[in-house]
C-alpha cells in the first residue's frame, strides 16, 4: 500500500476531494478519499439517514455493441461469459452479473445494462484491464468492445437521494430499482441507473469527466447531501450483505459458494431455454443442483470486538481444524454491533449456529446470521 504517488491515478474529482478535506489513500491504483472530516462512523450513518455522494470513478465503464447491429447478437455473446440471463434483459434495465472462469470461480462481478443498441457494463476498478482484455479476446468476432475512460461515475445513495437528484433531473423520480436512463443533469449528458452498493435507494451517475466536478459540487450544495469516503462505502455494503470483489469473491469462490444463486436466472440453469454455455458451467450447474461444500454467511460476533478478514473459524474453543474463514468484517455503525461475512463449511451454516473466531489468539463466540444485517431499502415499486 505504499506505491509512490506518481504511480497512482486520479479521478476527475481529486481536487474536490482534497478541497473537502478528504484523506486520500491508494486504492486499486487510484488516490481515493477513504474518509472526510466527519469520519467513517458519521459518514455511514449520514448515508442511511440522508444522502451520501460517493466518487466511484475508478470503476470501469465499458460498452459492448454487436458488429451486426443486432442487440440479440451482443446478448448471446455476453452470455458466453456470464451465467445470467442477458437476452431476457429488457431495454433500459440492469442486472448484476459475474464473469466466471473455467473452474467455476468468479473473475469479477459487474453490472450489465441493456441500452437498446448496446450493453453498458460497470466493472470493478482492480479488474477493469483484465475484464477488458477478457471481453476483447472472447467477443471480438461478434462485438465491438469500447472502454469509456473519459467518464466519471458518481453514486448518490440514501433516502434523500431521489429528492436531491430530482432538483436537477426530475425524471429520476419515476425510475425504479435497476432502471437505467439517459438524463440531462446540470448541463451534462448522463447515464443514470437506480442502483448502488449501500443497501439504500439511490443512483449511479455516469458523466463525462469534464462535467463531473461541477455536478458533484451541485449535489453537495443540496441540504442533506454529504461527500462520503470509501471507508463508509465498505461498512455500508458489508451491513447490506453485499460482496466486495477480492475479499468475499475471487477466482476460487463459485457463485453457489458465494450464495449468489439469485444472480443465475432459471433460463441459464439445467433444462432452461438458454442453459449453460458460460465458463465453468458444468461445475456451477452441478452445484446449483447439489449444493457446495462451503457457503458465504453472515456472522454476528457476540462480543464487541470486530472479527475481521482472515480470522479463522472453529466449532468450539479447543478444536484445531478450521471450518471457515472470515472474508469481510468490521463494525456496523447502523446496527451498532460488529458484523462479518465468512465462508463456512456447509454443515455449520444454519442461522443461529454458534461457532468461534480466532482473534489475536482468543476464541470469540460468533453466531451464523442471515444476510443482510440491515433491511435493504430499494425502490422496487
Amino acid at each position, binding site marked *: 500500500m505504499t506505491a509512490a504517488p506518481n504511480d497512482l491515478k486520479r479521478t476527475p474529482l481529486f481536487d474536490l476531494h482534497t478541497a473537502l478535506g478528504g484523506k486520500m489513500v491508494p486504492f486499486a491504483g487510484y488516490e481515493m478519499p*477513504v*474518509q472526510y472530516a466527519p*469520519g*467513517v*462512523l*458519521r459518514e*455511514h450513518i449520514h448515508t442511511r439517514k440522508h444522502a451520501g455522494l460517493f466518487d466511484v470513478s475508478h470503476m470501469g465503464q465499458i460498452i459492448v455493441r454487436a458488429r451486426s447491429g443486432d442487440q440479440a447478437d451482443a446478448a448471446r455473446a455476453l452470455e458466453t461469459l456470464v451465467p445470467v440471463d442477458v437476452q431476457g434483459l429488457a431495454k433500459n434495465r440492469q442486472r448484476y452479473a459475474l464473469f466466471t472462469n473455467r473452474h467455476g470461480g468468479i473473475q469479477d462481478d459487474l453490472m450489465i445494462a441493456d441500452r437498446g443498441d448496446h450493453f453498458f457494463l460497470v466493472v470493478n476498478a482492480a479488474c477493469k484491464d483484465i475484464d477488458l482484455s477478457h471481453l476483447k479476446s472472447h467477443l471480438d468476432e461478434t462485438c465491438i468492445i469500447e472502454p469509456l475512460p473519459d467518464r466519471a461515475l458518481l453514486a448518490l445513495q440514501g433516502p434523500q437521494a431521489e429528492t436531491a437528484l430530482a432538483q436537477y433531473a426530475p425524471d429520476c423520480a419515476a425510475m425504479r430499482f435497476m432502471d437505467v436512463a439517459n438524463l440531462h443533469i446540470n448541463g451534462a449528458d448522463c447515464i443514470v441507473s437506480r442502483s448502488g452498493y449501500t443497501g439504500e435507494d439511490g443512483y449511479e451517475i455516469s458523466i463525462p469527466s469534464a462535467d463531473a466536478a461541477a455536478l458533484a459540487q451541485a449535489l453537495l450544495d443540496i441540504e442533506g447531501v454529504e461527500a462520503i469516503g470509501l*471507508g*463508509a462505502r*465498505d*461498512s455500508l455494503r458489508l451491513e447490506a450483505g453485499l460482496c466486495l470483489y477480492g475479499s468475499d469473491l475471487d477466482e476460487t469462490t463459485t457463485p453457489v459458494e458465494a450464495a449468489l444463486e439469485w444472480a443465475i436466472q432459471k433460463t441459464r440453469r439445467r433444462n432452461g431455454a438458454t442453459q449453460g454455455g458460460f465458463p465453468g458451467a458444468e461445475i456451477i450447474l452441478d452445484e446449483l443442483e447439489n449444493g457446495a461444500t462451503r457457503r458465504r454467511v453472515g456472522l454476528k460476533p457476540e462480543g*464487541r*470486538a*470486530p472479527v*475481521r478478514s482472515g480470522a479463522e473459524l472453529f466449532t468450539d474453543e479447543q478444536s484445531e481444524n478450521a471450518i471457515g474463514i472470515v472474508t469481510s468484517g*468490521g*463494525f456496523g*455503525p447502523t446496527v451498532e454491533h*460488529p458484523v462479518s461475512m465468512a465462508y463456512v463449511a456447509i454443515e455449520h451454516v444454519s442461522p443461529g449456529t454458534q461457532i468461534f473466531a480466532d482473534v*489475536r489468539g482468543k476464541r470469540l463466540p460468533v453466531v451464523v446470521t442471515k444476510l443482510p444485517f440491515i433491511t435493504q431499502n430499494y425502490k422496487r415499486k
Partner: protein
Amino acid sequence: MLKFTEDHEWLQVEGDVATVGITEHAAGELGDLVFVELPDVGAKFDMGDVAATVESVKAASEIYAPLKGEIVEINEAITNDPAIVNTNPADDGWFFKMKLDDVSAAEALLDETAYGELIG
C-alpha cells in the same frame, strides 16, 4: 513528568507509576473507536510489547507498552465507551497505569517539544 513515544502514546509518570494513553494526533488518525481491549491487571510487558488493541470501524491497531513494567490499573470506562478516547485522549481516555521496572528509562523518551516536531 509527561513523556511521549514515537508510537504516539503519552505517559504521565508519577513516582514509579506511569499512566499511559494515546495522543490526540493518534486518536485523530485512528478515527472513531468502536472497541478497546485492555490488558489484565498484573500483566507484565517489556518495552514495545503489544499491551492493548483498539479498533475503529475500518481497522484494528495495537497499543504498545512504552516501557518495561507491570499493569496496576486499567481504565474500564473506555472499554464500555471507546468514544471517550476520541473526545478526551489526554485525560479521561487514558488506557492503563503501569508500575515501571526502571523509572529512569522514561528520561530517554520524547518530551512534548520533541513529539510536536515528530508529528509536524
